[in-house]
C-alpha cells in the first residue's frame, strides 16, 4: 500500500515542481521589464558603465595638470605581460637636488589583460581604471598610449 501511495506522491510532486518551473518562465515571458539586454549602439548616449568597470588604465590629472606618479616603476615590475613601460628622467629640484621624474608612462592597451595589478600595487594611487570601453581602432599603434599628459608634473602635497 505504501508503494502505491509513494507512486502517486511521486507523480503529484513531479507535476508540482514542473508547474513551479513553468510559472517562473511564464512570468518572465510576459514581463518585458525583466529583459536585461541593452541595444548598444542606439543607447550610447545614456549608457552608464559601472563604477568598478575595467575599461582601460588611466592616470588621473587634476586641474593644474598634475598627477601622482613618481615614476617608481612598481607597476612596470608587477605587470605580468609587460604592458607598461616607464621612462624616467632626472631633474633638478628647487633645493638643488637631483630627483627622478616620470618622463613617459607608456601603456600598451593591446597587450593588457586588465588584471588590475598595476592599479592595486601603485604606492601613490596614481593609476585607476577608466570606464571607456570603445577601443576599436584601425591601427595597432594607436593602442599604445602615454598616460601622463605632456607638461604634467607631480602633485607636491603628497610628500
Amino acid at each position, binding site marked *: 500500500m505504501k508503494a502505491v501511495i509513494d507512486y502517486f506522491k*511521486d*507523480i503529484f510532486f*513531479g507535476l508540482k515542481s*514542473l508547474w513551479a*518551473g*513553468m510559472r*517562473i*518562465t*511564464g512570468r*518572465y*515571458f510576459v514581463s*518585458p521589464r*525583466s*529583459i*536585461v*539586454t541593452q*541595444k548598444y549602439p542606439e543607447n550610447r548616449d545614456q549608457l552608464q558603465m559601472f563604477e568598478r568597470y575595467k575599461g582601460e588604465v588611466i592616470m588621473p590629472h587634476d586641474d593644474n595638470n598634475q598627477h601622482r606618479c613618481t615614476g617608481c616603476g612598481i607597476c612596470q615590475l608587477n605587470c605580468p605581460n609587460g604592458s607598461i613601460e616607464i621612462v624616467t628622467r632626472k631633474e633638478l629640484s628647487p633645493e638643488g637636488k637631483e630627483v627622478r621624474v616620470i618622463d613617459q608612462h607608456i601603456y600598451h592597451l593591446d597587450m593588457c589583460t586588465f588584471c588590475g595589478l598595476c592599479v592595486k600595487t601603485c604606492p601613490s594611487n596614481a593609476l585607476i581604471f577608466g570606464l571607456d570601453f570603445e577601443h576599436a581602432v584601425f591601427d595597432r599603434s594607436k593602442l599604445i598610449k602615454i598616460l601622463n599628459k605632456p607638461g604634467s608634473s607631480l602633485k607636491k602635497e603628497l610628500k
Partner: protein
Amino acid sequence: MIMSFNIYDFSGLTRSIDNGLREIMSPGWAIFIELAIIGLVFLIFYALLGLFLVYAERKVCALIQNRLGPNRVGPAGILQTIADLIKLLMKELIPLKNADKLLFNIAPFIVIIASFMAIAAIPFARGLHAIDFNIGIFYVIAVSSLGVVGILLAGWSSNSKYSLIGAMRSGAQIISYELSVGLSLLTIIVFAGTMQLSGIVESQANGWWIFKGHIPAVVAFIIFLIASTAETNRGPFDLAEAESELTAGFHTEYSGIRFAFFFLAEFMNMFIVASMAVTVFLGGWMPLHFGTDNAFNHIMDFIPPLVWFFGKTFVVIYLIMLFKWTFPRLRIDQLLTLEWKYLLPVNLVNILVVAFLTLMEWHF
C-alpha cells in the same frame, strides 16, 4: 470556372477547382494537376511556417531568458530567419570520408518526407484537407514515426560516434513514447467513436473533448503533450542531439541545406504534433462554444475556422517551447522510467476509465 469562395467552408472552393479542371482536361490529368497544386501549396506553407517557427522559437526563448532575441535584421528581427536560410543555402555540403554515401544523402529527405506525409491528413478548416482518411489518426501516428528511420540512417551513415549514439537514443525514445502517444489519442477515439480526423472535429461541435471528456481527457491531453514532445526530439527530451554531450547528435556531420532539412523537419513535426493535439483535444477548427444557442456562441462562430485552428495550434506550440526552455534535459534512464513506470500505466488506467464512461454514456 465558377469560384465560390467562402471563408467558413472551403469545400465549395475545392469542388469548384476540381470541376473546373475536369471540364478542360481528362480526369487523370485533373487529378495530377490537383496533386501538383496541393504539393506546391504545402511546400510554400512549409517554407513560410518553418521560417516563422524558427523566429518564434528564438523570440520565445529570448523572452524567457530575459533577452531580446533577434532584433537587427528587419523590424524586431523578423527577417533574421530569411538571412539564416540564405546563409544555409550558400554553405558547402561537406562530403565525408568512409560515410555511407547513399544513406547519408537520403536520410534528410526521409525525415522531411515523413513530416510531409503527416501534414496531409490534418484538417485546417471545413473542407481544407488534403486527404480525409477514415483512419486519419492511425495514418498520422504511422507516418510520423517514419521520421525516426531517417534519424537512424543519418546516425548510422555518418560514420561518427556522436551521430550513432544520438540516433540510437532517438530510436529508443521513439519506440517507448510512441505507445503513450497512441494510447492518449485512443482515449479520444473511444469518446468520438471514429478515427477520421474530420469526424473527430465534427464530434466537437458542441464542445471540445478536453471539456466534454471530464478528467480522463485532461490526463490524456497532458500525457499527449509530454509524449509528443519526446517524439519530436525536443527539449527536455532532446537526448538525440544533446549538444552538451553529443555536439549535435544525429546531425553532427551534416552541413548546409541538408542540416536545414533536419532543422525544418523538427519544427514541422512540432507543428504537426501541436495541430494533432488541437484537432483531437481542442476542437480542431471548431469555435469555442458553451451551452447551446446563446450570443457568445454566435460571436465565436463569426471568427473564421482558420483563425481558430492556427490560434489554438500556436498556443500548443508555445506550450511545447515553454517546456523546452524551462526543464533540464532528462537522462536516458530517467526518460525510460518516466515512460514505462508513469505515463504508460496511468494511460492504461485512463483508457479503462474512458471506456467505462463511454459505455455508461456519462460524457456530454
